[in-house]
């Protein structure tokens, strides 16, 4: 397929972008004891077919993007988290009990076309 002439410049390509979740900003600081905030990322950017091999993309992302070049109704692959990690949280519940629990999938470590 011919590649679109307007190939995305690198800054529009799928990548992770730093984000800090601050519970005071969310208005949750009254019941979340710790952490007060934590660093994570969000995923944003284009998944053009030509550069798919540079991303830790999945096979179906290749095929889906290939299909997009033939039938535009099929969307390109999306820029999504490909590696997550967890954090522990210390917080109050509505009865005033204190809970310490580990929550999976809270931090985005890596992004890719999926």
């Amino acid at each position, binding site marked *: 397929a011919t590649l679109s002439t307007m190939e995305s410049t690198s800054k529009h390509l799928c990548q992770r972008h730093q984000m800090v979740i601050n519970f005071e900003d969310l208005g949750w600081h009254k019941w979340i004891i710790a952490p007060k905030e934590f660093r994570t990322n969000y995923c944003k950017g284009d998944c053009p077919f030509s550069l798919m091999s540079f991303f830790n993309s999945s096979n179906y992302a290749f095929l889906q993007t290939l299909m997009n070049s033939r039938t535009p109704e099929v969307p390109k692959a999306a820029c999504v988290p490909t590696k997550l*990690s967890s954090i522990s949280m210390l917080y109050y519940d509505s009865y*005033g009990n204190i809970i310490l629990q580990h929550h999976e999938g809270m931090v985005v470590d890596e992004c890719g076309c999926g």
Partner: protein
Amino acid sequence: LEEASLLHFMGLNKVPSPRTTQPVPSILMKIFQERQKAAATGHYQKLCYVKEFGVPGNLIRLFQDQGALSHPMEVAQAPPCTQKFHFFNLSVITQDEQLMMAKLDLRLGLNAYNALQQDLEVMVSVVQGPAPQPDQKLVLHYLPWSQRVLHVDLLDVVKEWNSNPQSNLGLVLELLPKGNNDSTMTIYPEGTCDNWRQFIQASLMVVTLTHQECPRFPHFPRKRR
């Protein structure tokens, strides 16, 4: 609504707004900080064991004493006041959690004993009948003069309360002069009952294991066929 659904992953059905908040015990903050350090250095491991307590578990709760709310009768008790009721609302423990530890922490404030010369015994009993007098003595602890904190293992009691919530009528803590089980003998702490009671703080530390997070650990004892 969005916020509630967002909190669902934390097992909460609405944004918590606790009326009173108990202080965070140092042991919980220590466990939290160790886990954060492990996660930050990439030594994330499946957290299904609480080494500080020596038990399997991935969910630690410190239950707040709701005794004052649930036992107005003790307000009517005139001096000498040697009883304090404690109640812990365990309804937040879900069915897929396995109880691994339940420890009652009693902190006996200094002020309540200033004027008392004799050593004291602390009796912790399970309230079993509608009448306030407990039928079963759980633990008879001798409280040396210097000791201020008592830990009482309540795992069996909490398992019973969790499997049969109606049986959870709370606990009674009683102070008696040492070696004298005759509760007619009285001790007069300083001041009024409320003054005495507020210096007795109780909380219940519970560790549970959810098999969804920790499939490796021993499952519930299977019912024999």
